[in-house]
């Protein structure tokens, strides 16, 4: 693992209107890492992710993605930073009027000057990486939840990002599809060296693919470390969470 972090979150405080959701959150993510953000429902996981991908303004603190601050960036710089990242949303967020292949081709069509045959070839390759090439003509409505999530990962990878942000990738999936998705993430991390930041409260997924994890509680980082280490954490809230015990 390299010494220079690819993501630095420094004392980030953020929220919605008057309501603060995160207070003074700090952590680093290193290149090639599968980094998990977890915690109980409502602890601010998705809020943190939205701040990291500049969908939500931070109140104070800074976030560096690949060395550039996304908080202080102007519009042009922000777009340049966004080119280095890909995002998988909880719902998949595929465009219903486009086939799976067209969904994956979209960023390439819109943001590059590549000829259409090159775009098609790249999109097919990306779909192959998530084992979906033979279903490329499917429309999202006729694809299963797992297929939609995998297509969304392929779309997020279309521009070869350095970092992939995944919001609850296993939400709404059956256990075997969830494991299949975990395997794809593992392979992409290992083969392509992509850094993954995954928001999840699926413990089996955290233990399966997470190399490092932070546990958020009441908008603060309560624990940070390897998933197995957090299983033996001294704090009762962390211990209970990582050992699937009831909160009270």
């Amino acid at each position, binding site marked *: 693992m390299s010494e220079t972090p690819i993501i630095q979150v420094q004392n980030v405080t953020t929220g919605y209107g008057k309501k603060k959701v995160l207070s003074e959150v700090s952590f680093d993510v290193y290149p090639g890492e599968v980094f998990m953000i977890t915690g109980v429902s409502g602890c601010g996981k998705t809020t943190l992710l939205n701040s990291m991908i500049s969908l939500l303004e931070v109140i104070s603190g800074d976030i560096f993605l690949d060395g550039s601050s996304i908080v202080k960036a102007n519009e042009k710089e922000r777009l340049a930073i*966004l080119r280095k990242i890909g995002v998988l*949303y909880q719902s998949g967020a595929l*465009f219903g009027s486009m086939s799976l292949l067209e969904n994956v081709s979209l960023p390439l069509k*819109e943001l590059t000057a590549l000829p259409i045959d090159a775009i098609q070839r790249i999109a097919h390759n990306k779909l192959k990486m998530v084992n979906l090439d033979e279903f490329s003509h499917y429309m999202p409505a006729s694809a299963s939840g797992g297929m939609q999530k995998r297509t969304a990962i392929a779309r997020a990878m279309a521009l070869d990002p350095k970092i992939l942000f995944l919001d609850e990738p296993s939400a709404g999936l059956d256990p075997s599809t969830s494991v299949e998705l975990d395997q794809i993430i593992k392979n992409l991390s290992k083969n392509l060296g992509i850094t993954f930041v995954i928001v999840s409260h699926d413990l089996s997924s955290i233990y399966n693919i997470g190399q490092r994890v932070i546990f958020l509680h009441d908008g603060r980082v309560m624990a940070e470390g390897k998933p197995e280490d957090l299983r033996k954490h001294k704090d009762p809230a962390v211990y209970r969470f990582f050992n699937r015990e009831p909160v009270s």
Partner: protein
Amino acid sequence: MPFQVEEISAKTLKLEFSGRLDVDSISEIWGLCLAAVAKRHPENLEIDVKEVNYCDSAGVALLQALHEIQIKDEHSVVIKGSRSDLDAALVVKENVLPLKKIIPKESLANVFLENLGARAFSVCKDLRGNIVFLGSLAYQIYFVFLNPHKFRWRDFWCSMEDVGPRALPIIALIGFLIGLISTFQAAPSFGQFGAQILMVNLVGLGLVREMGPLLTAVLLAGRTASAFAAEIGTMKINQEVNALLTMGLNPVRFLVTPRILATMLITPILEAFLIFFGLVGCYAVMHSLGYSLEAFLNQIYQSVKPLDYLGGLIKTFVFGWVIAGIGCLHGLKTTFDAQSVGRSTTQAVVSSLIMLVLVDGIFALLYYVLDI
């Protein structure tokens, strides 16, 4: 009565409960019990529940209310003789409604000022959002004209089909009925002066200059503005708009521009259909009154000038722009709660109708000044 009040000392009041503390008994003693404590303001309140053999959630609520009175007065309260089942009930209730110090309400003046400030801030924020949207829209339309290959042509044609041909039956029906009813209603009055042929002027000019553009726009406001708000609102909830943003794509260019250009181009065609069917309705009445088609067409030709039609046509372009713009704007403003799509849809229709009347008024003034 399952409770007794006893003043142990000047500072201490004891409430002794017995028997069942359930919904039936509590409904009888609730007011008396609270009044007994509220009237005396005891520094120490002892609640004895030793003799209580049953306590349901109404009983727990009473104990909580007594507790709150004491906390509010910054006085003490002790529950004596409690048993495990009652303790459990109290604990459960405490978890639901924590017994904490009640924060005094802010004065009305403060609340009013705070609400006024919040409202003003919200209006300014809304206004800023609308201006940013208009600016972004103008830039994206300009961008599309310079880079037509970057335009979402498929979305444009789909929107055109949705807004145009699919709205045609209702446009034709309303146009026909308006022409027919207007002529029919005017017939007796015009008949008194032997000027029934002039009804063609009334309906023809009315349709071409005012009714045609406005009715088409009103129908589209109900049909298209709401559809755009719902479509884009649902995309927002499904995080598709967020996906565009994080891909570095502009949602206004991607989602709004095709819809606005399609609506602007199709509205004048729909208006022409509405006028045509309105005139057909008018002719149906004129025919029943014994006028020939030649006379009808000749009267139309004499009364309606190309400039009249042009005046209406310009309005329909602007109306189309207003309807589609407002529909898309409200779609993009959709938040992530359950009612938001419905709210956006309603707001889109209401705002479009208000804006249509406003824009029509501006056009009326402008045409009056220009003598059109």
